[in-house]
């Protein structure tokens, strides 16, 4: 199954430039954390859900993306309800749900290449003053893009394997192997990145001169 974050399409959200979508997402993120009224947060979550639906992604694709998030939200909700109280847990749940749905609406409708380009442009000024390295940032963003769908896929594999053995859905039993496997994959990817001579030499000035950095 296709578990990549992006689902091709031609909806209004798809046509909106990546920068605009991320701008709104960023502003909404700040807004959501300043607000604490359950009604307002609930409305925001509802709007976000409508946006996700407007991307016209196949329902199966949405289910695959939302199920693991749902499990994690359930765990967080239960933990917050126990450690604090139920109203606090409701606020937290609605706030995160709204944010996650908005982020999903953006990633569902933005081509990975556009996303990368947007981040590279965004960080170009920082790079000029030497604060950030756009190559590094684009590598980081790519890694997030590649890992998120994989985490979804693994989540499903583990759930199916456990269901096949008659285990009931148990968040801890799901999350532990999920985390272990994801860390293992991250290790392998780190090796693969090393094997291809990352990082590039300081100033990409042309020569294949490589500085030594012993491991």
């Amino acid at each position, binding site marked *: 199954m296709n578990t990549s974050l992006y689902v091709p399409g031609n909806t209004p959200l798809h046509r909106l430039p990546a920068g605009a979508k991320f701008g709104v997402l960023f502003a909404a993120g700040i807004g959501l954390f300043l607000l604490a009224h359950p009604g307002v947060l609930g409305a925001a979550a509802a709007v976000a859900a409508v946006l996700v639906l407007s991307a016209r992604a196949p329902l199966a694709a949405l289910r695959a993306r939302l199920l693991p998030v749902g499990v994690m939200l359930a765990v967080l909700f239960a933990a917050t309800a126990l450690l604090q109280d139920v109203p606090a847990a409701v606020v937290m749940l609605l706030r995160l749900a709204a944010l996650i749905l908005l982020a999903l609406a953006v990633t569902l409708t933005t081509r990975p290449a556009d996303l990368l380009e947007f981040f590279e442009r965004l960080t170009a000024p920082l790079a000029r003053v030497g604060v950030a390295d756009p190559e590094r940032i684009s590598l980081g963003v790519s890694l997030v893009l590649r890992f998120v769908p994989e985490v979804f896929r693994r989540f499903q594999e583990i759930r199916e394997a456990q269901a096949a053995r008659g285990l009931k859905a148990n968040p801890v039993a799901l999350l532990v192997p999920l985390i272990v496997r994801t860390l293992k994959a991250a290790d392998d990817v780190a090796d693969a990145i090393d094997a291809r001579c*990352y990082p590039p030499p300081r100033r990409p000035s042309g020569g*294949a001169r490589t500085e030594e950095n012993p491991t």
Partner: protein
Amino acid sequence: MTAPAGPAPGSAAEERPGAAEPPAPVIELQGVGVGYDGRTVLSGLDLRLAERRIGVIGQNGSGKSTLARLLNGLVVPDEGRVLVDGRDTRTEGRRVRSEVGFVFQNPDNQIVFPIVAEDMAFGLKNLGLPKKEIPGRVAGALESFGIGHLAERHSHLLSGGEKQLVALASVMVMRPRTVVFDEPTTLLDLRNRNRIRDAVDAMAPAAVVVTHDLELVSGYDRVLVVHDGGIAFDGAPGEAVAWYREHCS
């Protein structure tokens, strides 16, 4: 018997990465010992690898991947040293890795960027290649594996066989002098296994191939059997496979 090392039949590629056929670098292991968390995996290894096609076989957990990783400095020895053309992998790891490419078993973990062409460009940027030379090199390498049409595709949505070819191309585009493969065909079906086998047989750089697929190494120049913390057999493919079948099954 020598594996066919000339251009692949039917892959009429002008821009074949490394078509000049550089001599294989000499990889030397001197008194190498390595382990994880105090448990020894390999010890007392003395090896000199210079053949064009070298196979490595052995049981699960015998240390084949560890040996492979020693060759380009992904793992550095606890004892002794590994030299690639005289360069110590401990102090010149990055330089060694620019000459010794590595193809992993699972291409999913090897492909980093979402679009095939971007992933191919990654290694070239790391080598410090000028930006304007990169697209040409990438296109040439993809063509030489017959996968030019995949350039703009999403790398993580490709089939397993296509992914492994992309992973191989992304290493070959860097023009290494030798490529280490850790079970490159394990996750593939027969047809794709044969595609990878042919690509490996035909490629210009030297190759060290770790595999459980005993037939894969049958035409190689030399085959090592890893067993009991060391190289238990080192010789021609036929004898090595026979030794392995007798002692390890």
